Every structure is written in C-alpha cells, then in structure tokens.
C-alpha cells in the first residue's frame, strides 16, 4: 500500500508526542533542548507532507523559516546553558531552583 498523507501525518504526530514526552520526563537541560528540536522537526515533516500532497509550495517554503528560527534558538539556548553552567556548575533542571527558596 502506498503511504498517503495520513501516514506521514501519523509519523509526524508520533515524533511530536515523543519530543513532548522527553520535555516532560527528562531533567538534563541539553536533552530537553534536543527534544524541542525533535518537535520542531516533526512539524516540518507535517508541513512538507501537506505541501507535497496538495501540490503547493508554501509549506515547503515555510520549512525554511522554521529551520532558521530553530538554528537561532539553538545558538542562543546553548549560550544560555553555558552561562548557567559557569555560574551554577550544573545543567540539571531540578538543581536550578534559586527562585524557589
């Protein structure tokens, strides 16, 4: 059976759910960041599938902007994590609780 639009959307949905699961479950900031990237990638997969099956270029062009924003976000986010590590010597989110006490 030839995989159709629904098959691609299902894969994209499962990938997004796994990314969300990782953000909820993991405590390491770097892994949380990777899971965020996974969610962004899942959204690009859905956009490309829509764009291909409905024969329009707009979705594929929008993927460009998502990749740009993701690259900028990774650069700034990792700089923040390094700055945090310099000060606190940890990247675990449950040890970053200064505002709590």
């Amino acid at each position, binding site marked *: 059976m030839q995989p159709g*639009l629904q098959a691609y959307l*299902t894969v994209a949905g499962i990938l997004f759910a796994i990314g969300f699961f990782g953000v*909820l479950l993991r405590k390491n900031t770097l892994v949380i960041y990777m899971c965020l990237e996974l969610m962004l990638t899942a959204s690009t997969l859905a956009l490309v599938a829509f764009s291909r099956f409905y024969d329009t270029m707009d979705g594929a062009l929008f993927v460009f902007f998502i990749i740009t924003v993701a690259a900028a976000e990774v650069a700034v986010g990792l700089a923040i994590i*390094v700055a945090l590590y310099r000060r606190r010597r940890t990247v675990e989110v449950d040890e970053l609780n200064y505002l709590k006490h």
Partner: protein
Amino acid sequence: MSAFLFYFFSALTILAALLVVLNREAVTSAMCMIVALSGVAVLFVLLQAYFLAVLQIVVYAGAVMVLFLFIIMLLDTTARRIHVTEMNLVFGVAALVALAGGAIWLAHQYPNVTDLPAIQQLPTDQAPLAYATAAKTFGFGLFTRYMLPFQVAGFLLLIAMVGVIVLSKRPMVDGTKPPSGDPLR
C-alpha cells in the same frame, strides 16, 4: 518499493527518537538524534523535497548537532540515573499516549490523498506556486511572495548572533582581566 522505504525509515526515525528520550548519556542521545534527523531527511526525499532533505542533513544533522555535541562534551556532565517518580512516569506516559493518539486521530480527519500529484522540475508562474523539485523554486518563492519574512528571518539571525556574543562574553570588573585557568570560569 517506496512503501517499504517509507515504513522502514519511519520506524527507524521513531525508534531513534525514543532512544533520544530514554538514553542516560547525553552524548548517546545526541547520536540517536542525528539518526532521527537523518531519517526525517529520508522521508523528505520520499516526498520529493530533495532540497529540503539536503538542508535537513547540512543544517540539523550537521551544524546543530555538532554544536550540541560540542557543548555536551565541553560541559562534561556526568551521566546520572533518570530518576523519575512513579507519578511523573504515569503523567509522562499518559501525555505521550494522549498526544500521539490525538495526533493520529487528527491525521485521520484529513482526506487520505495517496496519489502524489505530478510535479514539475522547474517553477511555473501560476498563482499559488505549484510544487517543484528544483532549488530554483525556493529562491523564486522566497524572493517574491515571502520577501518580508525572508528579511525578518535574516534580521532574526543577526539578533541571535549579537545575543550569543553578549551572553558568552566574560564580565570584566573595572577593566581587569578575569583570572584564567578553567575555560568555563
């Protein structure tokens, strides 16, 4: 053949994505992430988005993941047990199942188009830009209809660059050099 490739690579992608979440070592997670992103690139090829597949490999699996690996190895965080309380695990799995189920349900609300429409290789000038494989199509779309977002994206990259430089600059107190030694201090 294309159906087999689709099922094989989507299974590989989902498995690698699960391993990203479940691995203890951040480095292993990053390696699995490269596999998952490459799998998505293969799915792009199956959708005949060749240019985006190359971009995915170069930008995501290449640049972004190298940056991730560099930071993981620079910070040298020790692997620790993923200590999850049962409550967290139950909520996490419930969220996973609910979100995946909802996404699958939503995906089945769309009419299932199985036939790929015929594509041109080069862009044509019809009103909604039709799907075409050549990299030229992307340039055509970006420099006509999406000119303003394109400029804004460029400006966003500039802001990100300035932000990263400001963030990673060491604070200098009254002009004296910070003590050297540990590169992270």
